[in-house]
């Protein structure tokens, strides 16, 4: 790998560690493998009752993402997760990543989508605008 590419990776990783744990390397590889598909329709009456509670999370570093999603289940249920789990059995939407075993704890794409969705929702963006932003950032 050329020196400049190695240096760039080191720089980006060092920037990222200013505010978070180091970026994982699979992000770029995952993006090329992820299936693409439409965003789901939010299910009527969906709520956050199945989102993994804070007491069962493996670490506080994911608390922010889970709390963000917990506040807007009806929005998150209308968003497709770009990490590849969207086609897994039992997964309906990005909300599914935060339910059950809470696989979003281990996936920075799930976390990033949840946090971005919450930020844009709080800024008054519509579901379609949020979907478009997520497709740009993670698609």
């Amino acid at each position: 790998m050329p020196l400049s590419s190695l240096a760039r990776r080191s720089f980006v990783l060092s920037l990222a560690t200013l505010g978070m744990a180091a970026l994982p390397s699979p992000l770029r590889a995952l993006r090329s493998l992820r299936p693409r598909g439409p965003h789901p329709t939010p299910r009527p009456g969906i709520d956050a009752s199945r989102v993994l509670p804070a007491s069962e999370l493996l670490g506080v570093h994911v608390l922010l993402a889970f709390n963000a999603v917990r506040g807007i289940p009806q929005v998150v249920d209308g968003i497709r997760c770009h990490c590849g789990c969207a086609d897994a059995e039992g997964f309906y939407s990005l909300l599914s990543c935060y339910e059950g075993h809470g696989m979003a704890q281990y996936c920075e794409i799930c976390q990033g989508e949840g946090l971005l969705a919450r930020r844009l929702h709080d800024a008054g963006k519509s579901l379609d605008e949020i979907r478009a932003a997520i497709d740009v950032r993670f698609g």
Partner: protein
Amino acid sequence: MRAVRLGLLSVALAGVADAQIRASERAHVMQTVDGTTITVDYSRPRARGRDSLFGKQVPFGEVWTPGANRATTLAVSRDVTVDGHPVKAGKYSVWIVMAPGDWELVLDADTTLFHTQGPRARDGQVRFMVHKETRPFVETLTWSFPEVRSTGTQLLLHWATTAVPLDVRVQPTQVLAVDPALGRRVEGRYEIQFVPPPAPPPDSAGAATPPGPPADSSGAAPPPQPPVTTFEIRQRGERLGVVITPPFFEGMGDMVLVRRTDEWFQLAEVDADGLKDVWDELTLEFAFKDGKATGFEVRTKKDEMIARGTLTGR
């Protein structure tokens, strides 16, 4: 005794059944370019001292698969062009119509053919003439990707002293050009402020995080401040260039901003061929007032803001 020998023989044969030596061993080469994957699966015949491979071992007039045994296949994950000819995403068997002069390359949708089943001309095939070159001798038929660019790759067939280079171009996922009207909205000089990491949470006993070191009252000079980082963003022709001072690292190439939306941009390095490397781990989210940018936030894929750019001059 004979039964024992037969038993030993069957055990030995079972062990080697998966490890047969073939005259033309299988091979698989793959190259990704800007998200498009190009894959060739083939068997690799050897020259084995045979001369005049083309025209003799592989007679003129034959529809030959550049490989052996099962037909060589070419798969592309997205639409591409090969020597300027459109090839839709999919998998194809690869054939060459042998001739003393130029060869005709044929891509056929049937990927189950054996090397003796060269398909006739039929609908759905991609057919075009290819250029042959004379190159140093290569014993074993080889498909390779000797050259890779951000916009495509060279796919090379090479056996004995004959080579066929193919120019494969992919559909770009990123666009280098930025509408000048949009570029002028974000032009300016920005001072960058890196956002410090958040304070760690309290420990399990609920105790507050210990305070940092006490302020130095010895009268010693304060530690030197790091140099201020600035982004100078200017539209240069079709490109939205950005000069970062000081550079983030030694050897950092020319940088541009690549548009993702009218408010979101990403840093990218460019070279003589165009886009070299897009830093998609970070996104610059611009804020606007009266149609002009006032600053931006630098966010990671985890949507955490790690830096802020404030406009200090146009």
